[in-house]
């Protein structure tokens, strides 16, 4: 027997607010104008990274905002703990949750997932001869898939930060990481050799939520679409 958890189906749907998951950090600031244009005004401390609160009511009683780590936005939405979320395409590529739909490209948080290596080793051998390569990354699945597609095993060193240190200290030959301006790479003597994917943030929705509450979720997608079009027009 699996330990029981509250049977949400027993309560009328209207009593449950829709939960919007937002990523902490870099993208949160870029979300603010979009939320404003969409008419979503969360409690003021939502953007305060020092606030201990994690769940915030908004001006709309049928919408609550939760603030979680960027990678966790996808997990919250995939499991249906949050109904909708804003999340980088890098996170979606990494987790590849089939339960997540990404119906809207918000165009914010532009960056790329790239391969980088020390400037000194660039061109020192022919990558097409490799059987395997050691890669430090916080995107083990993206890195593994990228190299598997060209017939190379990626030996993953899974790090959560400071990837740029890894090649210099002998931890790995390359890194696969998120690059925005490339200045961190440059400062650490690394050179971007390949772009795996260009990344923007997406509005994501839980598949079952869309199927069982099509009106409510559809209305939120439409609101964010309108807000995003208004942003582009400026």
């Amino acid at each position: 027997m699996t330990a029981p958890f509250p049977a949400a189906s027993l309560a009328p749907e209207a009593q449950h607010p829709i939960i919007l998951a937002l990523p902490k950090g870099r993208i949160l600031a870029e979300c603010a104008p979009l939320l404003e244009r969409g008419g979503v005004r969360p409690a003021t401390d939502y953007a305060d990274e020092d606030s201990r609160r994690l769940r915030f009511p908004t001006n709309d009683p049928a919408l609550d905002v939760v603030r979680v780590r960027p990678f966790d936005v996808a997990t919250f939405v995939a499991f249906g703990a949050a109904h909708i979320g804003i999340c980088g395409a890098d996170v979606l590529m990494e987790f590849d949750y089939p339960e997540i739909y990404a119906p809207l490209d918000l165009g914010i948080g532009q960056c790329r997932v790239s391969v980088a290596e020390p400037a000194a080793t660039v061109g020192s051998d022919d990558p097409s001869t490799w059987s395997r390569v050691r890669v430090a990354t916080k995107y083990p699945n993206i890195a593994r898939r990228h190299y598997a597609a060209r017939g190379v095993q990626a030996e993953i060193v899974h790090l959560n930060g400071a990837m740029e240190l890894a090649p210099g200290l002998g931890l790995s030959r390359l890194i696969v990481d998120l690059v925005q301006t490339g200045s961190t790479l440059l400062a650490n003597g690394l050179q971007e050799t390949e772009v795996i994917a260009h990344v923007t943030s997406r509005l994501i929705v839980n598949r079952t939520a869309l199927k069982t509450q099509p009106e409510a979720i559809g209305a939120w997608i439409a609101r964010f679409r309108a807000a995003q079009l208004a942003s582009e027009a400026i």
Partner: protein
Amino acid sequence: MTDDTPPNTALLPSGLRDLLPPEAEVEAAAIAALMETFSAHGYQRVKPPLIEFEDGLLAGSGAAMTDQTFRVMDPDTHRMMGLRADMTPQVARIAATRLTGSPRPLRLSYAGQCLRVRGSQIAPDRQVAQAGIELLGVDGPAADAEIVLVGAEALAGVGMDRVSFDLTLPQLAPTLLDEAGIIGAARLALVRALDRKDAAAVAEYGGPLAGLLTDLLLVAGSARPALDMLDAARLPPLSAALCARLHQTVQAILDQAPNLRLTVDPIEFRGFRYHTGVCVTVFAPGRHEELGRGGRYLSGDGEPATGLTLYPDAMLRALPPAAIRPRVFLPWKTSSNQSAALRKAGYATIPALQNGLDPTSEAARLGCTHVLRDDTAVLLTTES
């Protein structure tokens, strides 16, 4: 370091579990109730074996479960056998072999356990119960609708009257891509983008279809508005014919059950690898797992068929706790007539197996709801 802690014998392999009282009984009762509704609608029960030869099990529509099937070698014939991961292909095999002589339309029902090689993070179960119906030999909106209506009645019969049925056309996306001549790597990327409703990727890989497909992504929703939007979309002939069939099916369902919650998602094709027509997925509001799925496929020698498989495990997680049969403790040497009468009245009887115990405290200790006192079943109260 040595790892010398003996494994805990309670640990089961991942995705497997013991059902304890009262859940095991609730599950059995729910499956019995579903099967009763199926039977009342003329669906006759079949019972395929748990395991059969791999080449039979995975032939035809069974091929979709190849990755998910456990195999063992038959020591007798040295042929590979597969443990079923889905019962529908087995029932289709029975219809196409042993029951070819039976008149069509052929209505069959089944219930049983299936095993899968892998669970996912979100649906970790590897042993799943199935209870379902197959309607073979007829191709038409009335048959598609019957499956949904019987399924809805069966679910309502076990207390699930707020389910919603999501109707899909798994063939629509491939047909649109065929009609637009999209092939190769672009097609793979586009199919994946459609599966994830990734609007940005659909726009990137959609080529001439980008606009239409983006519209279709947004069509998903309540049945009537979605169908109106589909009717308004300019579709090539084969795709339009598929949508017309979906429209007829929705109409046939709503004619008989106007209050049934129906949604339509025309370009969804997830998990419908052997399906050829209108398909259906069952959801319960507030739950994040499917309660069942089904749809149209080709059985055996290309015979048209449709069916619906319900997942009792998921249903039980969505159901309110069931009323448990009252349990009455019988003091030492209660007459067999009296205990039979109590059972007839709906009690479970728990007789004392030795003399000299206080019936009330024994009843409480054994989790009974009642104790037999002065020839009547008395409700145990917290004070007594």
